């Protein structure tokens, strides 16, 4: 019970509407520095309503946290709320009746109007009912460049992918890894998706991932993407790190020229005290095709028997989407808010670029929403192998890629 006391001491309980001070256990896998700081904003806001956020953080997104969450749900001992990738992944839990219908809250709070882009809420919708609260927008399509690294190599900071490829030999000569790609499989797969939008364009992306068109996947446009991936593979040799933020750290410290990574990498730059535009450069859509995807995180609320807790769930859902919470959370997290109506004055250069693109509507859906986790995993297996194994030709990889798309559902 010692830690309970510690908890009480840690979360300075605000003296407020203590009419229903309910503990709500929230599980999530946000444990890295920036993430934890961001989630603390949620907790603070929720505690301010007189309830209490019991933190159930488990590091390691897919492999560790998800089976635990699913086990808890199916085992009949659900948590109060849980982070989950929205989109295809939670559908089955909804169908099994394990997750709570939030339509009432959504209607009351008018989510349909305020959440932009609308595709976010669509991902939460099953049979016309809303089951999750999206909390942020993450986009993958960013190339982060270390200004210092290019200075060392004596070449100007590139403005797009092709210039970057051209600058690679100079970087290598200076002992700098041109492109940092962490060893975990999802990073290679993600980088490929980014290359795909940048080089083959939005339409090809949608044909392949939305329409599952295997012919396009095997076609000449994609062949160009695979050629670019081969370049990336060559440039990434010598990375020798596993985690994405270790790869980001190589860019931060100038050991690597750049990294293709989602906007969450920005949190790491911020934490290291780096300033966008001065210390590092960000190129959305690799500087070629300024399109960003609108994936993101969402919270789901399991069906609970306890009425008090059910009420607290509603409070939490509306708290997560409250304008102030959205701003505070997303600034820390390095992601974009899901509401079009909040003012993000504090946003830095890169975020502003993102907001601009968002405003122009140059968006695509994230692969998480378009593909099943199963296809995603197969894709990860393929690209992690491709990036690690120089003897695998782009042609072979493309064949296998087309096969995955053909069998995707």
């Amino acid at each position, binding site marked *: 019970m010692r830690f309970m006391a510690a908890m009480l001491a840690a979360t300075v309980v605000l003296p407020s509407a203590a009419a229903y001070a309910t503990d709500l256990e929230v599980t999530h896998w946000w444990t890295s520095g920036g993430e934890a700081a961001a989630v603390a904003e949620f907790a603070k806001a929720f505690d301010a309503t007189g309830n209490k956020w019991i933190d159930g953080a488990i590091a390691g997104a*897919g*492999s560790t946290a*998800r*089976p635990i969450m*699913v086990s808890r749900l*199916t085992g009949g001992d659900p948590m109060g709320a849980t982070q989950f990738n929205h989109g295809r*992944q*939670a*559908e*089955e*839990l909804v169908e*099994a009746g394990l997750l709570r219908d939030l339509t009432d809250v959504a209607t009351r709070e008018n989510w349909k109007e305020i959440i932009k882009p609308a595709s976010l809420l669509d991902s939460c919708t099953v049979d016309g009912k809303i089951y999750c609260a999206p909390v942020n927008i993450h986009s993958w399509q960013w190339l982060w460049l270390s200004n210092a690294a290019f200075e060392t190599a004596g070449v100007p900071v590139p403005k797009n992918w092709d210039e970057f490829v051209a600058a690679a030999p100079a970087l290598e000569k200076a002992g700098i890894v041109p492109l940092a790609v962490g*060893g*975990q*499989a999802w990073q290679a797969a993600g980088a490929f998706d980014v290359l795909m939008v940048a080089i083959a364009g939005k339409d090809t992306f949608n044909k392949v991932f939305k329409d599952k068109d295997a012919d396009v996947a095997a076609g000449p446009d994609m062949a160009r993407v695979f050629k670019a991936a081969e370049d990336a593979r060559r440039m990434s040799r010598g990375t*020798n790190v*596993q985690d994405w933020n270790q790869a980001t750290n190589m860019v931060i410290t100038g050991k690597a020229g750049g990294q293709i990574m989602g906007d969450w990498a920005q949190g790491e730059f911020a934490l290291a005290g780096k300033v966008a535009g001065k210390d590092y450069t960000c190129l959305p859509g690799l500087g070629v095709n300024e399109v960003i995807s609108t994936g993101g995180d969402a919270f789901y609320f399991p069906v609970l028997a306890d009425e008090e807790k059910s009420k607290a769930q509603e409070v939490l859902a509306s708290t997560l989407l409250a304008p102030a919470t959205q701003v505070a959370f997303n600034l820390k997290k390095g992601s974009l808010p899901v509401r079009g109506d909040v003012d993000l004055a504090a946003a830095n250069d890169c975020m502003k670029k993102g907001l601009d693109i968002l405003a122009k509507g140059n968006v695509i859906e994230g692969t998480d929403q378009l593909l*099943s*986790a*199963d296809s*995603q*995993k*197969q894709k990860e*297996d393929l690209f*992690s*192998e*491709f*990036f*690690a*194994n120089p003897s695998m030709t782009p042609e072979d990889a493309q064949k*296998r890629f087309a096969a995955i798309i053909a*069998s995707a559902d």
Partner: protein
Amino acid sequence: MTGQAHTGRPRRLLRNLSSKIASIPMMLTAVVIFLGGTIWTVVYSFTNSKLLPRANFVGFDQYERLWDAPRWIVSIQNLAIYGALTLVFSLVVGFVLAALMDQKIRFENTFRTIFLYPFALSFIVTGLVWQWILNPEFGVQSVVRALGWTSFTFDPLYNADIVIYGVLIAGLWQGTGLVMCLLLAGLRGIDEDIWKAARVDGIPMWKTYLFIVIPMMRPVFITTLVIIASGIVKVYDLVVAQTSGGPGIASEVPAKYVYDYMFQAQNLGQGFAASTMMLVTVAIIIIPWAYLEFGGRKRV
């Protein structure tokens, strides 16, 4: 207890009643969990279950896909290499250490503790530390290079061709201590007179070990084998902590395939199909042997 076979027939069910009652937890575990869980897994491997198990049967689809997946093939190959080498090395190294420890040496306690302590640590820890030591940028390679041998290359975890040996180094580090202990205990159990007889007969020490002592240690080797082999089949955490299966898919193992497809890919059917294949392989090897070893033989 062969002697009890002659008790009268009417009491058959009641005979050994206490023993049967006391064995209920074991029977339940064996039947409900291990057997039931296995059957459940096999049945659902024929479905297209995704995130949640659903009885929507699709025949052998999952198996076809499994054997088409390059990653599964690599996993099986890796397990074969890792398993064979782990068995050979941990038995050989474990036995050599045990034999050395059995030479009435000084500081036996110290040495034994040193060899055994890694077993107290979790695989996660083992993987992490070895990932570090084998990292070319600040581990062994960089240290040797700093000493002046600049062309020295030792980066098993970042070379797809040898990565499984990097995992092996860590696995052996953790596991051989226990093997050493088991075999040392076995050596200590050998009748002192056997050694004396061999010496009087003029049989050199290595021949005594090879032809007399090792054959005598069959039971302890079997226990050791069960423990090592069950660890090999289940190897998962070590790979996750050390390489995450990389570079690429070069150090993937079947248990990780099962886990990844069950929980990351949310394709339970695929995961179950993979685990069924693992179980079938294990069962083909183990069941006949286990029954002979532990069941068929009467107590001497």
